[in-house]
C-alpha cells in the first residue's frame, strides 16, 4: 500500500518528489542517483547535436519510465528525435513513444511519417520494426494508416515482416474493433502462409480476433499439423490449443464405442468413483447409440484426427512446460482412452520444475485423475510430499493422492498420510485429515481403520487437528451411526475442552442427531451448553437450539425446562438468525392451541434420516473447462475464454469437410495434382479474393500449397509436377491447334503419331486410338494420348491411378476395379449422348458438346473463313473440347459419389433466360445411390433455378448426367443448394465464370461496328496485352476467346482483327469483343458491353486466356 500511495504522489509532481527518494536509495546506480533533477537538462540534451548526449538523456528517461515515473512532459523533445540516425537513440525513442503516444495523441502524429517511410525500407528488419512501433501507438486517428500498413506487410516478401503483420492485427483490433472484417481477410491470407515463423503469430491473431471463424482453419488444418513441430514454442502452445477446439467440432468422439463396451462388460465401473460420471457415460452411450443407428459401423478415426495426435505427440518432449501441458490437454480431450496414458509421464516430469509450474500442473493432474485414474497410478510415488514443498503444492499433491487411492494402494497411501499428520504445517495437516475422510468414504474396506485413526487424533494436542478430525468424523459417522456410539460418547466429552466453533457445532449436531444412541449423555451436554450459551459463537448457538429441539422431542421429561431456557436466551440474542430460529422452533415443537398441523410432524421433520454427505473432490467436473487454461485453474470463466465444444453427435456435415478436406493426405501427389488442376481455374475465375492471395504469394508453389497440407520434402516435387501438369494442359491445347491447322490448310507436315504414343494408354482406349490416327501432330509430349478426350475425362483417367494405388494397399480387387473404371468411361460417353438427345429434341444440326474436337474445330475454322451462315446455328458452335468441368462434390467428401458440372452452352429449353448446367454424377462407391435430387436452394435475389429431375437410382460404379437451368441474373453470384441422396445431404454451390453468362449472337461486320459505336465511353474497356507465344495466330485466338466466353465470331475483313459477339443470358445485353493483333505478339483487347461489371470481368478472363 505504502508504495502505491507514494507512487500516486509522485505522479502529480514528478520532479519535486523524485529526488528525496533517490537520496536514500543506496541501490540506485549511476542512472538513478545524482543526475535526476529537472527535466530541463534532459530537454537540452535531447536538443543537442551530439548523439552521446541524446543517448544519455534517453537512457535516463527510459529509466524513469521503468520506475513508473511520469515523463510525459518530455514528449515534444523526445519525438523530435524519432528520425535520429543513431540506432540506439532511435530504439529508446520508440520505447518512449509506445509508452506515451496514447496520452499525447496529437504530438504522436508527428512521428507517423517516419514510420511510413520505414515501411518502405529495403531492409526487412527496418520494415518490421517500423510496423511494430506504428501498430503499437494506440492512437485512433491512424487506424486507416495501420490497416494499410498491415495489409501491405501481410504480402511482404519477408516472412519476418509478415510475422510482424500478424502481431499487429490484434493491436489494431483492440484499438478499433470495427476493423474486424478487414482484419479477418488479412488473417485468412496469413493463415495460408507456409512459413513456420508466421504460423504461430497468425493463429494467435486468429484467436484474439475471430476465434469463432473455425471455417478459416479448414484449408490450413493439415498444414498447421505438419508445420507444428518446427514452429517456435510459444506459437506451438497457441496452435495446439486452437486445434483442440477445432478437432472437437470436426471429428467424432473416439471413445464412443469404448463407452458402449464398458457398459456391456460393466467391468470398468470402479474407474468412476461417483454416480455423476456414470450419468455422463450413459449420455455418451446415448450418443453412441445415435451414431451407431445412423452408421451401423464401428468407429473409424478420421485420418486428420490421427494426424493431429501423431504430430503433437513428439512435443511432449519439449523443454517448455507450456507446450507439454498443451499437448497433454489435447490428448486428454481428443485421444482415444487407450492412448491418453502417454501424457502421464510427461506431466510427472514437469513436477520437477519450478514450484509455480508444479502448482499449475498439479491442478490439471488433479482434474485428470478424477476422470482417468489409471493413467497416473504407476506414478503414485511421484506425488509423495516433501516437508520442503510449499503448502499449496502439498495440498494439491494430497488431492491427487486421494484421487488415486483405491483398494490396492490404500494401505500405502494411508501410511504416507500418517507421516503427514505429524507435519508442522497445520493447514497441511488439516487437509490430510480431510483426505483421510475422503478415502474412508470412497473405499469401504478402510472405513473403520480410518475412523479409528481419526479418533486417536482427537487426543492430539493441537486443537486445529482435533477440530478438523471432529468435523471429518462427524461426516463418517453419519454413514453408519449405530455402530459407533462409543465414539459419540468420546466426542461428547470433548466439548469441555475443544474451542474451535466448527468442531463444537459438529459434536452438538452429532449428539442431537443420535441422541437415542446416547440417551444419558445428551441431556447433560445440553445442560452444559445452556450454561455457556451466551458465550458461544453463532454457529454453535444454532446447534445448541437444534440439540435442544431434538431432545425435547425424544426426551421431553428431562429437557423441557432446559429447552425453554435455551429458547428464551435465543429469543433475545443479538443475531437475528438465532432469534428467527428460536421462534420457528418454538412454534414447531411446543404444542399450543394456535400451532397448526405441522407440530404433529415435528419429530419427523427433525429426526428424519439424513443422507450421508458425499465427500467430493473440489476438482470434480472441472474438466468442462479446457485443461491447462486459466479458466480451469480458477474454476471460473475468464474473459475471452473459448468454450471447448462438445463432440458432434454425428460426423460433421460432409460439405463442410469439403472445404476442410481439399486434399487427401494419403493420396499420392498425382491425385493432388489433379485436384489442383480443378481448383486453380475455379478460384481464379470466380473469387477475386483468393486469386489475389495466390498472386500475392511470391513463392512459386504457394498457390498450390495454400490449399494443400503439403509437407516438407514432397512439396517441392509436387510443385514441379503441377507445373508439368499445366504445361501438358497447354500442350493439349496446342495439339488441338495443330490439328485444326492440319485440317484446314495443312500447313504442317503430317507425322504419324501412334508409334510415339505411349502404348498402355492406347490399349485402354482402343476406339479413340482409331480416331486419333486421323489426327496427327508432332506428338512429342507424352500427354498427347490424352489430349483428344474431353478434359473431364482426362482428369478421370488420372484420377483412377491413385485410386488404384490405394486399392493396392487396401483391397485386393485391383483388376476388377480397373475394369469397372473403364466401363464407366464408356458409359459416361454414351449416357451423355443419350442425355442430350433427351433434352435437345430440336432437330437442328447441333454439334453435341461431347462430340469431340473434330467437328467443332471445323466449325470454328469455317467461321474464321466467313463461310458460316444461318445453316450453322451460331448457338451451336460451343467449343466442346474446351468445356471445362468443375467439381461440385469430391468423391471422398461425397462418400463415393462424385459430381462434376460443366456449362454445356446449349440453350436451356424450358427457360431461355437460364444457363444450362450439365451435371455428371459418378457413383464410385460400392453401394447404390438412390433418389438423387436437390433441395434447399439458396439464391441471391433475382436468381432462379430449374432443378434437374430426380435420378431415382444410380447403381454402384455407374454414371449419370442431368441438366439443370440457372438464371444467374447476369452476375457471378453462387447458387447454393443441397444435393441429396437417400442417406446424405451435401452442401454444394455453383458459381459461373462470367463467360458462361452469355450466349453467342450472330451479326455482320457492319452491324457489329454500328453496335460498337453505340457502346463507347464507360461501356468500352480496352486493354493492351502481349499474346502468349502459343496463341499468336488467329485460330488460337479464336479458340482461346471462345473457350473463355460463350461468344460467336463475327466475320471480319481484316486478318489483324478478331471480333466476337454475344448477348447476356438474362437481360440480352450485347457483348462485343475485339482482339486486334499487332507486331511481336502485341495486341489490344476491346470489350463493349452495356453491363460494365460483366465487361470488366470478361476482360480479365479473356486476358488471362490469351496471355497464358
Amino acid at each position, binding site marked *: 500500500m505504502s508504495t502505491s500511495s507514494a507512487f500516486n504522489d509522485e505522479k502529480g509532481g514528478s520532479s519535486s518528489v523524485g529526488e528525496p527518494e533517490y537520496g536514500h536509495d543506496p541501490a540506485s546506480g549511476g542512472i538513478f542517483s545524482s543526475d535526476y533533477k529537472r527535466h530541463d537538462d534532459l530537454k537540452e540534451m535531447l536538443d543537442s547535436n551530439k548523439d552521446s548526449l541524446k543517448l544519455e538523456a534517453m537512457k535516463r528517461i527510459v529509466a524513469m519510465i521503468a520506475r513508473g515515473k511520469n515523463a510525459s512532459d518530455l514528449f515534444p523533445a523526445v519525438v523530435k528525435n524519432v528520425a535520429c540516425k543513431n540506432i540506439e537513440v532511435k530504439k529508446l525513442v520508440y520505447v518512449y513513444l509506445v509508452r506515451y503516444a496514447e496520452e499525447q495523441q496529437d504530438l504522436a502524429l508527428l512521428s507517423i511519417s517516419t514510420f511510413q517511410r520505414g515501411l518502405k525500407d529495403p531492409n526487412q528488419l527496418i520494415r518490421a520494426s517500423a510496423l511494430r512501433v506504428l501498430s503499437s501507438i494506440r492512437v485512433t486517428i491512424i487506424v486507416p494508416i495501420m490497416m494499410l500498413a498491415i495489409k501491405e506487410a501481410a504480402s511482404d516478401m519477408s516472412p519476418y515482416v509478415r510475422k510482424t503483420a500478424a502481431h499487429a492485427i490484434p493491436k489494431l483490433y483492440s484499438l478499433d474493433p470495427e476493423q474486424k472484417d478487414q482484419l479477418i481477410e488479412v488473417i485468412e491470407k496469413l493463415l495460408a502462409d507456409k512459413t513456420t515463423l508466421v504460423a504461430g503469430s497468425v493463429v494467435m491473431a486468429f484467436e484474439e480476433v475471430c476465434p469463432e471463424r473455425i471455417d478459416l482453419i479448414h484449408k490450413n488444418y493439415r498444414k498447421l499439423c505438419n508445420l507444428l513441430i518446427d514452429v517456435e514454442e510459444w506459437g506451438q502452445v497457441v496452435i495446439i490449443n486452437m486445434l483442440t477446439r477445432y478437432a472437437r467440432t470436426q471429428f467424432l468422439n473416439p471413445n464412443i464405442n469404448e463407452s458402449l463396451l464398458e457398459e456391456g462388460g460393466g467391468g470398468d465401473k470402479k474407474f468412476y468413483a461417483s454416480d455423476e460420471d456414470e450419468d455422463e457415460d450413459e449420455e455418451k452411450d446415448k450418443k453412441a447409440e445415435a451414431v451407431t443407428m445412423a452408421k451401423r459401423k464401428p468407429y473409424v478415426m478420421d485420418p486428420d484426427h490421427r494426424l493431429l495426435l501423431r504430430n503433437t505427440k513428439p512435443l511432449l518432449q519439449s523443454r517448455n512446460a507450456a507446450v507439454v501441458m498443451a499437448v497433454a490437454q489435447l490428448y486428454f480431450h481428443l485421444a482415444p482412452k487407450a492412448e491418453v496414458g502417454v501424457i502421464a509421464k510427461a506431466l510427472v*516430469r514437469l513436477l520437477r520444475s519450478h514450484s509455480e509450474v508444479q502448482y499449475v500442473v498439479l491442478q490439471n493432474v488433479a482434474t485428470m485423475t478424477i476422470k482417468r485414474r489409471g493413467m497416473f497410478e504407476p506414478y503414485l510415488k511421484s506425488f509423495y510430499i516433501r516437508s520442503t514443498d510449499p503448502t499449496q503444492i502439498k495440498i494439491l499433491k494430497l488431492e491427487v493422492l486421494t484421487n488415486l487411492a483405491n483398494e490396492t494402494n490404500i494401505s500405502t497411501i494411508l501410511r504416507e498420510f500418517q507421516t503427514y499428520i505429524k507435519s508442522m504445517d497445520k493447514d497441511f495437516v488439516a487437509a490430510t485429515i480431510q483426505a483421510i475422510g475422503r478415502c474412508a468414504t470412497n473405499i469401504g474396506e478402510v472405513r473403520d481403520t480410518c475412523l479409528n485413526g481419526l479418533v486417536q487424533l482427537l487426543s492430539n494436542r493441537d486443537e486445529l487437528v482435533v477440530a478438523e478430525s471432529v468435523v471429518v468424523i462427524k461426516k463418517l459417522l453419519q454413514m453408519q451411526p449405530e455402530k459407533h456410539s462409543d465414539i459419540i460418547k468420546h466426542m461428547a466429552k470433548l466439548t469441555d475442552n475443544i474451542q474451535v466453533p466448527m468442531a463444537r457445532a459438529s459434536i452438538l449436531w452429532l449428539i442431537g442427531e443420535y441422541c437415542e444412541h446416547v440417551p444419558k449423555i445428551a441431556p447433560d451436554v445440553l445442560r452444559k451448553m445452556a450454561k455457556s450459551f451466551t458465550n458461544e459463537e453463532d454457529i454453535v448457538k444454532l446447534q445448541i437450539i437444534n440439540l435442544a429441539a431434538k431432545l425435547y422431542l425424544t426426551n421431553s421429561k428431562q429437557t423441557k425446562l432446559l429447552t425453554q431456557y435455551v429458547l428464551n436466551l435465543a429469543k433475545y440474542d443479538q443475531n437475528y438468525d438465532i432469534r428467527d430460529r428460536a421462534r420457528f422452533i418454538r412454534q414447531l415443537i411446543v404444542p399450543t392451541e394456535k400451532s397448526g398441523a405441522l407440530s404433529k410432524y415435528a419429530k419427523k421433520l427433525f429426526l428424519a434420516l439424513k443422507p450421508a454427505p458425499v465427500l467430493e473432490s473440489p476438482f470434480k467436473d472441472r474438466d468442462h473447462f479446457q485443461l491447462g487454461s486459466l479458466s480451469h485453474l480458477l474454476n471460473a470463466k475468464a474473459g475471452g475464454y473459448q468454450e471447448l465444444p462438445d463432440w458432434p453427435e454425428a460426423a460433421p456435415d460432409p460439405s463442410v469437410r469439403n472445404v476442410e478436406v481439399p486434399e487427401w493426405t494419403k493420396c499420392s501427389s498425382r491425385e493432388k495434382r489433379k485436384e489442383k488442376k480443378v481448383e486453380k481455374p475455379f478460384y481464379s475465375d470466380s473469387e477475386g479474393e483468393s486469386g489475389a492471395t495466390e498472386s500475392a504469394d511470391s513463392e512459386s508453389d504457394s498457390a498450390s500449397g495454400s490449399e494443400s497440407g503439403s509437407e516438407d520434402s514432397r512439396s517441392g516435387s509436387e510443385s514441379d509436377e503441377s507445373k508439368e501438369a499445366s504445361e501438358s494442359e497447354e500442350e493439349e491445347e496446342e495439339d488441338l491447334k495443330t490439328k485444326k491447322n492440319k485440317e484446314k490448310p495443312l500447313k504442317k507436315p503430317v507425322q504419324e503419331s501412334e508409334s510415339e504414343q505411349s502404348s498402355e494408354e492406347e490399349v485402354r482406349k482402343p476406339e479413340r486410338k482409331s480416331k486419333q490416327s486421323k489426327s496427327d501432330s508432332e506428338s512429342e509430349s507424352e500427354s498427347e494420348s490424352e489430349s483428344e478426350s474431353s478434359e473431364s475425362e482426362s482428369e478421370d483417367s488420372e484420377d483412377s491411378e491413385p485410386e488404384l494405388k490405394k486399392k493396392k494397399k487396401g483391397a485386393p480387387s485391383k483388376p476388377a476395379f480397373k475394369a469397372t473404371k473403364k466401363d464407366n468411361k464408356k458409359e459416361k460417353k454414351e449416357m451423355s449422348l443419350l442425355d442430350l438427345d433427351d433434352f435437345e429434341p430440336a432437330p437442328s444440326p447441333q454439334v453435341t458438346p461431347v462430340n469431340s474436337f473434330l467437328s467443332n474445330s471445323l466449325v470454328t475454322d469455317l467461321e474464321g473463313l466467313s463461310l458460316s451462315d444461318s445453316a450453322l446455328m451460331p448457338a451451336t458452335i460451343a467449343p466442346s473440347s474446351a468445356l471445362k468441368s468443375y467439381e461440385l462434390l469430391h468423391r471422398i467428401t461425397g462418400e463415393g459419389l462424385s459430381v462434376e458440372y460443366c456449362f454445356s452452352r446449349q440453350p436451356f429449353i424450358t427457360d431461355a433466360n437460364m444457363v444450362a448446367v450439365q451435371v455428371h454424377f459418378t457413383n464410385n462407391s460400392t453401394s447404390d445411390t438412390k433418389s438423387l435430387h436437390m433441395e434447399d436452394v439458396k439464391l441471391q435475389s433475382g436468381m432462379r433455378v430449374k432443378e434437374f429431375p430426380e435420378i431415382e437410382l444410380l447403381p454402384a460404379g455407374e454414371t449419370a448426367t442431368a441438366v439443370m437451368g440457372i438464371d444467374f441474373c447476369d452476375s457471378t453470384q453462387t447458387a447454393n443448394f443441397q444435393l441429396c441422396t437417400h442417406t446424405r445431404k451435401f452442401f454444394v454451390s455453383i458459381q459461373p465464370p462470367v463467360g458462361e453468362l452469355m450466349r453467342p449472337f450472330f451479326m455482320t461486320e457492319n452491324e457489329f461496328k454500328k453496335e460498337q459505336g453505340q457502346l463507347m465511353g464507360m461501356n468500352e474497356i480496352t486493354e493492351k496485352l502481349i499474346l502468349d507465344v502459343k496463341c499468336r495466330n488467329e485460330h488460337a485466338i479464336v479458340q482461346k476467346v471462345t473457350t473463355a466466353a460463350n461468344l460467336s465470331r463475327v466475320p471480319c475483313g481484316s486478318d489483324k482483327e478478331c471480333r466476337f459477339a454475344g448477348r447476356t443470358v438474362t437481360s440480352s445485353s450485347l457483348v462485343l469483343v475485339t482482339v486486334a493483333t499487332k507486331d511481336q505478339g502485341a495486341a489490344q483487347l476491346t470489350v463493349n458491353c452495356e453491363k460494365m461489371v460483366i465487361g470488366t470481368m470478361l476482360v480479365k478472363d479473356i486476358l488471362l486466356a490469351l496471355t497464358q
Partner: protein
Amino acid sequence: MIDSLFLINHSGDIFLEKHWKSVISRSVCDYFFEAKEKAVDPENVAPVLQTPHHYLISIYRDKIFFLSAIQTEVPPLFVIEFLHRVGDTFLDYFGECSETVIKDNVVIVYELLEEMLDNGFPLATESNVLKEMIKPPNILRSVVNTLTGGSNVGNTLPTGQLSNVPWRRAGVKYTNNEAYFDVIEEIDAILDKSGTTVFAEIQGVIEACVRLTGMPDLTLSFMNPRLLDDVSFHPCVRFKRWESERVLSFIPPDGNFTLMSYQVSSQNLVAIPVYVKQNISFLEAGSCGRLDITIGPKQTMGKTVEGLMVTVHMPKAVLTVNLTATQGTHTYDLATKVLVWDIGKLNPQKLPNLRGSLSMQPGAPKPEENPSLNIDLKIQQLAISGLKVSRLDMYGEKYKPFKGVKYLTKAGKFQVRT
C-alpha cells in the same frame, strides 16, 4: 496476452514496470501484496490470483517477484514459463538475477523486455537472437562506451530470427573448437526413519558447452540409451532420429545450453550413495532436546562422496543448538531456524558425526514432528544410473574439434524423514 510486468522485491517495492499494451496502474499490485501478506512465506503466494479486472500471474525467484497482469484467458503455464525465461535471460546477460543488477542495467533490461514481447506475445526469447540485437554488458565495453559514447545495441541487424536454425547464428568463429558435455544426475529420494527407501528416482540433464566454428552437425550416442525413460530436448535435437536410432542428432546453439533432460526408468533400482543414522528427540519435560546424526557411505561405486551437507529445518520452538561435529562446520540460523552442517568429503574410515543438545523455548509444547534432514552431496566422475556416452561425431565442418564428457552425480531432493 501478457499486458504488463512488474518486478517486486522481497520487501514489496515495485522497482520496475513495463507495459506492452495500455498502461495498467501499479495499484493492481495491491491485490498481490494482500495475498503475499496472508501467505507469510513468499513461496506460498498463489501463482495465479484473480482481481476484479485483471488476473495476476507471478513467479518468485531469486528473491524477486515477477508479476504479470493479464486481462484475458491465456494458459497460465505459458505466462509462468515465459516469466522464468525472462529470469533466465537476465541471468544469462548479467550473471545474476537480482534487484541491484536489474536496477544497474535498467536500460538493457527494458530493451530486452521490449524485444521479448510484442503486444504481450513472445517475439524473441532465444538468447542467441537477443544477444545479437542487444549486446550483454561487460566491463571492457562499458569503459569503452563511456569514453566513446558507444552503445550496447548491435549495429548490425540480427540474422538469427531469419535463418531456419533460429537458435544458432551464422558466421560463428573460434580459434579453439571445443565441445564439452556434462552429464549431471540428481537423486531424488525420500528415506524413512529406518533408512528404507520410500521413493527414489534419478533425473539427469546433459549440459553442453559448444564453441564450434560454422554450422556443425553433431551426433551424440550412448552406450546404454535404454536407460533413458523419459526425455525432453532442446528444440535443436531431431526427435525423429532419437525415436528411430536413439542417438541425439543436432545443430548446437552457440555457447552454453541444456541439451536434454531425462529420467531413468523406474524399473532400475536406484543406488542410494549414503546412509544416515539419526536420532533426534525432544524431551517431554524440560526445555531441551538431543540430536545425533551419523552419515556413512552406502553404494558409492567406489568413488568418494564430496560436498556433503545436511540441512535441517528445526521446529520453531528450538532456540539454540549446542552441537559438536567430528568433521566440518555447522551453523544455526536463529531467524529461520535452519541448521546447516557442512561436512565436505566423506571419509569412510572415520564417519562424520554431529551430536549435542538443542535448547527449547521454555513452556512451549514438545514439537510433534521431528524435522526431516535434507542431504546434499556430489560424486565426481560418476553417473549413478550408469549412463555412458559412447561417442560424439561431427559432420558438416572440416576441422577436428576438442571433445570432452564429464559425469557428475548430485543429490536432488534427497530427504530423510525422522
